[in-house]
């Protein structure tokens, strides 16, 4: 029997970065196949290549035994590969029906056959009958729907293509238990019809309940492929991790200290009841697969995406954080990994880029550069930032040096709580080391530091304690010798340590 889809020796480089060195994936006809791996292992890139959204640098993709070369997602669709997009492909102003058939309208002669499309859309919606809540119908405007129903529309959009291979990348993220259950039932029914599914999921529970086979990737290479029935969770986790990385001896910060920060039962769009404490002098790491609520927690604490419920206590008192200025006034600082979007005042000088936060916190009305420059210069130099002068535009600096400037922006305010949201994204190794040295220095001076990193190794090496996130909740708290890559990966996939 030929396989529905085969990818062999796939490589992909983005500039100097090798995302894939040996991607392999074999999906049989009529099976549900899990693709697992830690952040950055290449599983998303491999899926995009198979779906024609990214062109491979090398390697072969075969469908039903024949070589194929997709130049666009549309090419792949014609060949029978459908990719699930996490909310990215829906147009909020259009109806459910229009979204489902966007770009592949059913035709009656030269004209769009609205009646047929509506009929088909309603049939598709009926798949989720009884679990999708009210208000989901062919004519509903997508922008008015709640997140779970929008995700169902995304799923239906994939189903509508009657593909041979469906790629479901975190398709159940916004669904509740019953909706996910129904989704898997549909996948099983499709399996019986000979349709294959490639599933990326952050829950090992789901994987072991639903998938027939598992492919594990690590560092851009496919490591193993196995039958779910003949393997264990332990094996899968170890395959994802590779060499077990364990933390060096860690100082126990909890002993005899009072916490500086307490969060109780916080909720927001991507957080479902998070409680935690953090201590002065501590570097607390947040880990887990991407988008499981780590950034949302930091943004909630900083007020840029405030919690909808729950309470925050800081330095022995309850604090209300409704907007970033509240957080700044409480001595919080937030550094984003997305520098261009969240931090940089392009076209403005390094000096202006640094004093922005200071002027808010100190409620400065008048700014005398001659008075502030020595102070600003010192912070920037402490960070080993290389720059010609404070009056140079920020854009003249490299990415790593820019990130140092945005950290200097906050260090100038002497923050008591430093929130770092994947701060080392796209910066060089030297700058990374400087950054972590600086975090430790701030912690030793009494600040509380919470940082999210998409690289587990950074957390194991530099955090004193780690909270692992899964589906908007904390799935494990690890400290001391328990802070190993195996434990983190297991918790990232929803299994308690």
């Amino acid at each position, binding site marked *: 029997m030929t396989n529905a889809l085969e990818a062999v020796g796939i490589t992909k480089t983005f500039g100097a970065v090798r995302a894939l060195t040996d991607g392999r994936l074999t999906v049989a006809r009529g099976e549900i196949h899990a693709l697992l791996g830690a952040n950055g292992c290449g599983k998303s890139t491999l899926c995009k290549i198979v779906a024609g959204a990214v062109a491979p640098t090398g390697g072969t993709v075969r469908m039903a035994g024949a070589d194929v070369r997709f130049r666009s997602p549309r090419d792949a669709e014609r060949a029978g590969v459908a990719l699930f997009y996490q909310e990215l492909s829906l147009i909020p102003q259009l109806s459910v029906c229009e979204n489902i058939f966007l770009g592949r309208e059913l035709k009656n002669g030269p004209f769009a056959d609205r009646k047929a499309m509506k009929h088909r859309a309603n049939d598709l919606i009926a798949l989720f009958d009884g679990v999708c809540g009210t208000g989901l119908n062919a004519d509903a405007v997508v922008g008015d729907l709640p997140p779970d129903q929008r995700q169902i529309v995304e799923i239906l959009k994939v189903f509508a293509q009657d593909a041979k291979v469906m790629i479901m990348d975190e398709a159940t993220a916004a669904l509740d238990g019953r909706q996910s259950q129904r989704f898997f039932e549909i996948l099983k029914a499709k399996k019986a019809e000979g349709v294959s599914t490639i599933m990326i999921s952050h829950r090992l529970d789901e994987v072991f309940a639903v998938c027939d086979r598992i492919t594990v990737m690590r560092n851009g290479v496919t490591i193993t492929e196995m039958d779910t029935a003949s393997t264990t969770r332990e094996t899968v986790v170890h395959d994802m991790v590779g060499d077990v990385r364990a933390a060096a001896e860690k100082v126990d910060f909890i002993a005899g200290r009072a916490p500086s920060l307490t969060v109780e039962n916080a909720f927001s769009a991507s957080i479902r009841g998070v409680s935690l404490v953090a201590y002065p002098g501590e570097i607390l790491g947040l880990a887990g697969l991407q988008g499981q609520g780590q950034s949302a927690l930091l943004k909630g604490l900083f007020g840029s995406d405030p919690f909808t419920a729950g309470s925050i206590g800081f330095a022995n008192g309850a604090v209300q954080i409704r907007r970033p*200025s509240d957080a700044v006034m409480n001595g919080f600082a*937030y550094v984003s990994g997305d520098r261009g979007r*969240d931090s*940089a005042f*392009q*076209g*403005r000088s390094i000096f202006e880029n640094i004093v922005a936060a200071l002027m808010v916190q100190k409620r400065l*009305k*008048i700014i005398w550069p001659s008075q502030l420059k020595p102070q600003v210069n010192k912070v920037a130099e402490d960070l080993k930032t290389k720059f010609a002068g404070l009056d140079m535009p920020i854009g003249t600096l490299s990415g790593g040096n820019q990130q140092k400037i945005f950290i200097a922006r906050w260090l100038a305010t002497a923050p008591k709580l430093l929130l770092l949201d994947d701060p080392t994204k796209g910066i060089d190794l030297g700058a990374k080391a400087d950054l972590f040295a600086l975090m430790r220095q701030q912690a030793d001076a009494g600040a509380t530091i919470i940082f999210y990193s998409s690289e587990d190794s950074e957390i194991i090496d530099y955090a004193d304690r780690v909270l692992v996130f899964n589906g908007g909740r904390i799935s494990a708290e690890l400290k001391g010798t328990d802070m190993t890559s195996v434990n983190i990966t297991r918790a990232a996939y929803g299994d308690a340590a």
Partner: protein
Amino acid sequence: MNSNQSRITALIADPLTIAIAASVALLLIGEILSPGFAQGTQIVRLLTVAAILGIVAAGQNIVILGGREGIDLSVGSLISLGAVLAGNMMNGQNSGIPLAVIVAGGIPFLIGLINGIGITFVRIPPLVMTLGMTAVIQGGLVVYSQGVPSGAAAPLLSGFINQPLVFGIPGILFVWVAIAAIMLFVLRRTSFGFAIYAIGSNERAATLVGLPVQLIRTLIYGFSGLFAGLAGVCVIGYTGTSFISVGDQYVLPSVIAVVIGGTSLAGGAGGYLGTMAGAVALTILQSVLITLNLDVWARQVIFGLTLLALMLLYGRQKKLRV
């Protein structure tokens, strides 16, 4: 040597230098076309006209610096409103001047704030908001004045704008210099000025350092209204009486002056010195065109073309820099 060279290139490419050079060149052309064009009293006269445009452009300048497609098309009708209100407060009496300035500045300021609220909180695009406001003000003016011009400038105000105060220079030029000093100080030395550049450069980043982005943007439009209203007071002082569309001719030039001066229409970069030079250059250009006996519509065409040519020029420059 090399850095000297690059410094010279930078100076030549600087919009401020270009605007000043253009002003001098236009003066020479004017002098050739009509001897006496560039004589002292004539230059003072040109600067007086430029001052009024410069005051309007101060408001336009901060609106554009604030980014998010910032533009204030209501300045024309706000100038008219300021002029009509000031005329009615003064009625030719010197004693009415303080009240005239307060009312003609205050009401346009409040209307500007409404512009700002619509743009920041209701998220109406600036172009639409200020264009809609223009219609409201113009209609309101017709109702208020019943279509007939009323009121008159106080002699003291007319003298302040048209007659030399000291050294042959009229008072309005000192006012303009004072406004310029305030503008430069605010933009370069106050957190409000820094915040204007910040929200114009990256609104999201400005929010994330805790700046009150919405308040700042609202105030910017308020101040634009204030400057337009004050320019209206100057206009009635300059012409003696007002009519309800007296400010219309300032809308396009106020934008062009800002752009000539090197302020990016995308926001976040530029300043008032360049805008002042832009206002002067534009006023001289207008004067040259009048000398050439071009009527108002032909001048309109040239102004429009100037703006478009500038956009083309600066747009290309930016691309080269990246």
